[in-house]
């Protein structure tokens, strides 16, 4: 706690690129009317509470893990992004990275 609160140096807005991406996806979907913000906050809060049961969340990486988990569940429930499709594309992206020569742009094979 003290460490975390005593930390006064300026920190980057987003510590990892994927934090920024998931934040932007969520804001964009909200602006497009796919869900309203109070509903989002209630779901996100429930995830944080659940994830914080076994250890105190530090508000960094674990915060965005909870964010991602919440968005995945919401989109699955809506039928917007089904878990099987997400898993398939996750694997496709992983393969794309592992088979693209270093330094070249990574694209999905079948897109």
């Amino acid at each position: 706690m003290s460490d975390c609160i005593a930390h006064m140096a300026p920190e980057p807005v987003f510590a990892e690129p994927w934090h920024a991406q998931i934040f932007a996806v969520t804001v964009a979907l909200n602006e497009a009317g796919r869900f309203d913000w109070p509903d989002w906050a209630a779901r996100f809060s429930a995830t944080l509470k659940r994830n914080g049961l076994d250890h105190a969340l530090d508000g960094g990486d674990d915060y965005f893990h909870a964010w991602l988990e919440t968005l995945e569940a919401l989109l699955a429930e809506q039928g917007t992004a089904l878990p099987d499709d997400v898993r398939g594309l996750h694997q496709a992206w992983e393969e794309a990275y592992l088979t693209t020569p270093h330094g070249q742009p990574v694209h999905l094979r079948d897109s």
Partner: protein
Amino acid sequence: MPHDDHDHPHALLPPEPALRVKALETILTRKGLIDPAALDEIIDTYQNRIGPQNGARVVAKAWSDPEFRAALLEDATPVVAGLGYYGRQGEHIVVVENTPAQHNMVVCTLCSCYPWPLLGIPPGWYKSDAYRARAVREPRKVLAEFGVTLAEGTSVRVWDSTAEIRYLILPMRPEGTEGLTEDELAALVTRDSMIGTGLPKVPA
């Protein structure tokens, strides 16, 4: 990081959650629900254009202009919207004023609701379980850890943000700032002073 060598035969594999985000983005883009260019725009806005400097401008104006201050405390949402700062999530912004009798601080016990248009993305500590739990339970102790000691007789009020209502603290104008311009005053207003976990800087 596991991959640091230059001889690596393939592209650097992003961390697992990053691949999950890419998977979602691909699905949503293919369905036409999001536009990758719009995502870049959102990130750029929050990384570069929205931050505590917005809130500082509001505070400096309130210190300088009594009518603006009165309107701000009465109903902040339209007043800050007039300066170009409005919530993307449709929330109301409420400004609460520190006085010699009462110091105010803000927390979100629900998750991390925060006045984005005025302060940007919240710092890590604001999102931590430790701050979220302790700000309500032992605010004076938390303030002390931030280096804030209040005068005896000053009470502390903690405001709990929600998805609908976000709070901004209007700190007390530091002494010795008579005659400063709004820009000079804004430079004294720190992010933490607008969350209530800090005080404005004192002019040198």
